[in-house]
């Protein structure tokens, strides 16, 4: 089996995710970019698992873990965003510079 096409797709998704993470100013979109990066990793895991076909199905298991953690992360992340928006009427990261010296 050939995994190249999956790796290309995953690399593209990861690059888009990094672009969104660094460029976007809206926190919700930054979180979406993080999700993109996580799913790129998941594609890699599944692709290599299909190729190697390990008896324990380690790739799938890790993918499921990543999805779980991502779900939790989005839950907490969106809650924080909601609170920030309520307090500051803004979801722009440029306004969030309180955590400095």
């Amino acid at each position, binding site marked *: 089996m050939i995994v190249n096409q999956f790796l290309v797709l995953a690399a593209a998704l990861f690059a888009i995710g990094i672009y969104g993470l660094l460029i976007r100013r809206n926190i919700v979109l*930054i979180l979406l970019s993080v999700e993109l990066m996580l799913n790129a990793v998941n594609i890699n895991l599944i692709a290599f698992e299909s190729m190697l076909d390990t008896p324990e199905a380690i790739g799938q298991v890790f993918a499921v873990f990543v999805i779980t953690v991502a779900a939790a992360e989005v839950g907490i992340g969106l809650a924080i965003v909601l609170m920030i928006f309520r307090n500051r009427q803004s979801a722009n990261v440029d306004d969030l510079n309180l955590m400095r010296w």
Partner: protein
Amino acid sequence: MTNFLILAAEEGEHVITAGDGGWWADTAGLMLVTPLIAFLAILAVGKRLKHQGGEIAVAALAVNLVWATVLLVMNMSGGVLDQTTFEIANIGNGLVFELGWVVDGLSIMMYFLVNLVGLIVFVYALGYMHGDVRVPWFFAAFSLFAGSMLILVGAPNLMQMIIGWEGVGLASYFLIGFYWDDLDNVRAGNKAFMTNKVADIGLILGAVILGVTLGTFDFAQLDLESVAHNEALAGVAVVGGLLLFFGAMGKSAQFPLHIWLPDAMAGPTPVSALMHAATMVTAGVYLMARTFPLYENLAQEARPWMIAIGTITLFAIGLLALVANDIKKVLAYSTVSQLGYMMTAVAAGGYTAGLFHLFTHAFFKALLFLGAGSVIHAVHSNDMSDMGGLRKHMPTTFWTFVVGSLALAGIFPLAGFWSKDEILATLGYEGYTLVMWIAIAGAFVTAFYMTRTVALTFFGEYKGHGHPHESPRIMTGPLVALAIPSVLFGLLNIPGVEIPGISNFTEWLGVREVTMGDHHAEGIDFLLAGSGLLAALAGVGLGWMIWGKDRASQQERDRFEIPLLYPLLRRKYFVDDAALGLVGATTGPVARLVDWTNTYVIDGIVNAVGGGTKFLGGLVYNGLDQLGVDGVFNGLSAAADSAGSALRKIQTGRVQQYASGFVAGALILIVLFVFVI
């Protein structure tokens, strides 16, 4: 813990089979600590109690009295001999420091005496000290006093005896100077303490000489080796014995170290009663009795000196009681005189005789002091010229005081008659005929001054202020309680008379590791007893003729002016003046020399050392500390500070900057891993 037991001790023709006392003897050490526990307890909580700690002191001695009585009964019906010691420290050279307690005839007699008289006096003090100042402190020091004496009489060795000895001295200092608001009382306390300290040097030197020679401080060993005529011990026995006797002279107020005792009257009256009866002054006689086999076997050459001192004390100091106006001082001189009797008797070989007098004397002297306290309580004065005619106002005090006086004077059949007769018989038997006649003359003097005291206090017209009235029950009760043994306890040791069921005083006092070997008459020597009684009756009669009859002019008749003798007595034989002069003459120049040395030599050295130290200190401070140590630490902190200032600018608070850094770092790592490595 070592327990040893010698089953049979031979006493005269009787063989006493002694038991080990079982549980009661094994726990007898409790008696030595309960008063000390009471001391601490009273200091801790005394103020909050109804009787301000007095109940704790009474309870402690009441518990002790149970033990003492059980042991006494066991000893009377068979004998008890036991010793318990704990090793505290090893001194080296085979010497060990041990604490513990002895249970034998001698110590049981003292346990009983101290606890019984102590308990009665404590109860009396509850009434006497009511409403006085510093009552908790009084009872605390009082408990310490009794506890120290119990440690002393229970001592199995010289070391523990010294501990108790000093404890008694300390507690007496507290109590004599109890009313320390008045400088005179403080001086009296100091005088007692310093006089005793002079004598203590003798005790400590004697203990060291005997203990180091023998390799042990144990009394039982000392007794056994004395009887066995240990050669090494024989070499130092006379010196050691005389040094111990010098120690005993201080505590038991023998001439010329008696000067502290009359001044010790500055304390509250219950203190005087306890001090003169059971605790303090009996310690010296007790020491002589405890080490009796030493004097009996090895230190015989010391005995003439001891007898001479004792005889001077019993007669010359007795005369002083004739001119004293303070009722307590009369009794104090009387005590000194009676201690002379005891000391003479023990020194002459009358182990039982001396201790029997100690035993009976404790009861009637405590009674007399408590009676005097009752009188002082009523008339608010110590001076007999403020008293008189109290017979009608204070009947209980009067009758008990008369009983005590008759017992002290040695009137048949009261306790003092039997014990004084025992002393006279011993002196006669041992061949000290001259001393015996002086002792009989002393009996006359005793009766003489006691008659004067009773007449001036209770007969004639009342010369004080206010209306005296009888003391409360809590004070008269103890008087009655002491009057009974003052009458009866002489019967414990009648020569030739056996009390059915119990052994007599001579037998149970002789329960020791070794035989005491003193003489106890088989029957009453009627000629001698008659002479003693006649002397006492003559004293009473003459005293009554002078002070009793002409009641109106009693005070004028008090000055029985014998040229030369009267001024001599008033000045107390100049012993006090001599002692003060000696102290002044010797300590003055020494003090000045010490002062000069202090100012010019020691201060110079101290100042030089101080200056040098200051200079060095400055050097170290400015050079090493300020420049060196502080410099390093200041430099380090400044570096950390500036580094922090520089680095904190990185922390912008912009999340995407951090993420950029993170991505850049990851890219660098990828490039490194893929292309370089």
